[in-house]
């Protein structure tokens, strides 16, 4: 029933991905009620998740491509292997 700060913050991390179980969340909330440090951690973790969401949104649309030079180079190297 009683969590250490290590366990509580681990559940808090898991819950950032909505993957903590109900029982874990109950135990976490009891701990957060009693522990100021983990309370801060939970608050900052939410802030961090918001930032990460922004980072994700900025990174995801740009699928990364190989440039022509890299493609050519790959092609050349593979060709050498095929022929050998």
């Amino acid at each position, binding site marked *: 029933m009683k969590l250490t700060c290590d366990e509580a913050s681990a559940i808090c991390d898991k819950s950032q991905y909505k993957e903590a179980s109900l029982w874990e969340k109950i135990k976490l909330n009891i701990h957060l009620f009693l522990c100021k440090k983990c309370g801060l951690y939970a608050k900052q973790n939410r802030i961090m998740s918001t*930032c990460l969401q922004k980072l994700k949104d900025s990174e995801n649309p740009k699928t990364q491509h190989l440039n022509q030079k890299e493609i050519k180079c790959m092609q050349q190297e593979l060709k050498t292997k095929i022929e050998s």
Partner: protein
Amino acid sequence: MSVTDKQSLNPEKWVSLYADYLFNYAIGRINDRDLAKDLVQDTFFSALKARDNFKGEASERTWLIAILKRKIIDYYRKINSIKGKAEVRMNFYTDGEREGEWLEERAPTDWSGEIEKKIENEELAHVLEKCIENLPEKYAMVFRMKTIHQIETEDICKELDITTSNLWVIIHRARTQLRKCLEENWFKN
């Protein structure tokens, strides 16, 4: 191996057909352009060597991606076995009466200032990115896959051949480390 089976592989066309697709897959897991490129090239070489094993049951692309996945696991195992300097810092007492409690110097402190305004700042994303880069590679890799690329927990575990609890330990360590890094580089003025 019959001739017809072999005909379904066209190594001459691999680069133009699949290089970009494989590269995109790799870069989502390994956040390093050159390394991702090397893995793709390596995939083609291995595929060429193993072309006789291609049964023609799966598509060429599926077959190539399976080889690339293997390369990524190998890479993960390699970085996973590198111990020492890149170890993540401890955040909690590991024994004694205070086991599991926050270490004094690693405990969260109040983030002063107008946080909401700071979140909007683009520079913050940059700091965060730097902090992720500073994580030990193994942590950064799993953390990115889960958080930035939002790959399902189950899929990450399968891809890297790790257990779920293993994954959460990594996420936990990555996040406590990131929190500290943000605090030191951004919220403390």
